[in-house]
């Protein structure tokens, strides 16, 4: 760890007194209007990308957010990062309400919340040199100029495992893994408190994934970073996360500490996801009962009533289509293990065999 790095951007407010959560989302809602019509644009519907999501991330920990494509993970990330306005609900960061702040008011927050993007090819401007890309945070926030900026950028490059002599190269001259390291260096430049990783390794080779994940966990240890880690790879999330939240169609289906969620999932959707994840050990893979979900993910413009998962759920009953289950701890679980399900999965229950007793 280099001292100058530590002094780069830590002129922040003291820790908030209100608990140990760095980020808290309260009933966050993000709808995208669907417009139609030629001359007069009418709003004909709403894509309910994120609907009533409440989450919190303790300081210095990693929350893994899993869910399939279109479940609203990335939208949630962009709401937290303040890149898109929130429809309703609140985003509390470090004790401050940062929901829908103006650009000017958001500016100091930007130094503390950074993002790492999914695609290392499109997240780096192909026309700018690596030094300029990593130096951008310093330039935008006017924290270092000239030779000082170059020195800090080269330190960052070294920190993330890049050769500082490649300062003047273009992104195209790097491999995918190296490019993702550039993205990490850029996110790290201002020494943020929170880094939102939007599927940071899903575009990379498996061998490279491990390197980048290890880099991220080293950085977390050294700088006390908090991560919101979005992925659809369950094993990656298990490796990096302290706690896990499972999203389905804009809602949280299940959340809690990593181990209880992975070892005894209570939501049928979580159980199905876990049963579908490839296992490295062929014996385990053969012995496992895979829960095959039928049908497609319904449209978020017109989500199912009640529990959003009920049309595909092997355990669904009539009440599931009528009454929306609340996210709550079930009997026998730790208090932080929450699930939104009327009929949570019991230990040892064979969901693969369970038929749909009563189609709704």
């Amino acid at each position, binding site marked *: 760890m280099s001292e100058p790095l530590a002094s780069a951007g830590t002129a922040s407010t003291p820790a908030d007194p209100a608990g140990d959560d760095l980020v808290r989302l309260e009933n966050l809602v993000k709808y995208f209007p669907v417009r139609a019509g030629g001359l007069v644009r009418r709003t004909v519907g709403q894509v309910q990308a994120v609907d009533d999501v409440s989450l919190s991330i303790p300081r210095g920990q990693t929350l893994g957010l899993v869910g399939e494509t279109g479940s609203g993970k990335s939208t949630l990330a962009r709401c937290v990062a303040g890149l898109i306005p929130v429809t309703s609900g609140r985003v509390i960061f470090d004790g401050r309400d940062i929901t829908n702040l103006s650009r000017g008011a958001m500016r100091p927050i930007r130094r503390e919340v950074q*993002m790492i993007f999914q*695609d290392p090819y499109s997240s780096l401007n192909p026309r*700018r040199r690596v030094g300029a890309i990593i130096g951008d945070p310093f330039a935008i926030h006017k924290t270092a100029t000239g030779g000082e900026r170059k020195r800090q950028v080269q330190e960052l490059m070294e920190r993330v495992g890049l050769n500082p002599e490649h300062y003047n190269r273009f992104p195209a001259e790097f491999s995918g893994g190296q490019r993702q390291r550039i993205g990490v260096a850029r996110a790290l430049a201002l020494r943020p408190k929170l880094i939102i990783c939007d599927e940071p390794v899903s575009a990379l080779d498996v061998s490279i994934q491990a390197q980048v994940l290890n880099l991220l966990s080293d950085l977390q240890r050294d700088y006390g970073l908090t991560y919101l880690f979005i992925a659809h790879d369950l094993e990656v999330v298990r490796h990096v996360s302290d706690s896990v939240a499972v999203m389905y169609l804009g809602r949280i289906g299940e959340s809690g500490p990593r181990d209880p969620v992975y070892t005894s999932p209570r939501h049928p959707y979580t159980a199905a996801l876990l049963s579908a994840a490839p296992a490295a050990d062929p014996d385990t893979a053969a012995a496992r009962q895979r829960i095959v979900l039928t049908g497609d993910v319904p449209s978020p413009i017109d989500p199912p009533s009640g529990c959003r998962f009920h049309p595909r759920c092997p355990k669904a009953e009539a009440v599931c289509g009528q009454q929306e289950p609340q996210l709550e701890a079930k009997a026998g679980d730790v208090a932080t293990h929450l699930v939104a399900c009327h009929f949570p999965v019991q230990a040892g229950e064979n969901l693969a065999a369970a038929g749909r007793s009563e189609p709704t």
Partner: protein
Amino acid sequence: MSITGIEAASQDAAASEGALDADAAKIEGRSQWQLTWRRLRQDKVAMAALAVIVVIILLAILAPVFVSITHHPPNIAYPNTGEDAAGNPVGPMTNGFWLGTDGTGRDLFIRILYGARISLFVGFVTTGIGAVAGVAVGLMAGYFGGFIDTVLARFTDAVLAFPYVVLALALAVVLGPSLTVIIGVISFFSWAAIARIVRGQTLSIKEKEYIEAARSLGAGSFRIMFFDILPNLLAPVLVLATLYIPTAIVFEATLSYLGLGIQPPTASWGDILADAQNFFQTSWWYVVFPALALLITTLAFNLLGDGVRDAMDPRTERVLAAGRGRRKRRGKRQVLADGQAGLAPAAPYVPPAEGS
């Protein structure tokens, strides 16, 4: 799940770094412009065009030197040596007139040189103004979108739809012909095509993830436009600008030819050609040389523009190497008009093997 330590990771990175270092001397800091220049140098036609343009520019700059050699200032008539007994112009290499004289006995060669000054000046200045204005309008329309886009894009379409010769003539008549008016009129029509292409490119670039990355860092709109989007636009704009210069030169010649551009006695190619009509049958050189000057200049700029566009596009490398570049090229020009081919190569460029 077994994951190797960070030590292994950094060793791995160091190993791949080592392999890269072998090429470092070649690769280090080679920008798109250096790559473009490398490819352009292999294009013989473009290099010949560039040489011709340099010669023309030098001739224009050195026009006073030629005056001191020939002792024939551009606006002085020589009734005795410059005209024959019937009062017609004398031919090339007669009485010290290298390319003969014009209808009033002035040195045609010197007047063509001074005409080149006007043509090149108008060509570069109007294209420069047009490029700056076009980029500004296109960037704002594409980036901000919404109402601003509607207004700017419709205005651009209106300018493109205008019968520009008619408007230029009207303006020249109303405001009185002068160099300033000509530059103003040609500039006014030069930005719209560039603005349209730039707008299209901006629309596609602003959806890229690196723009969102810049926004998440807290960059403002203008920083994003100038530091993140503009560098990606320079390639297509440079190509369009190079190809617009000859258009502007011909436009100026047209206005001057119609008597609404540069006013006599100042020399201009269009004006010389207009005068030469009366001597069409008796003095071939009077028409041929200024027309040749116009032809060579515009052709050279067009060929250079073609070459620059091909050099900007890494995919043409193999075509050039195979030696059938010209044919392939023609089809692509149409695409550029639709705003596609000028696109800066977004895909990672793999440097060619040495000596390809």
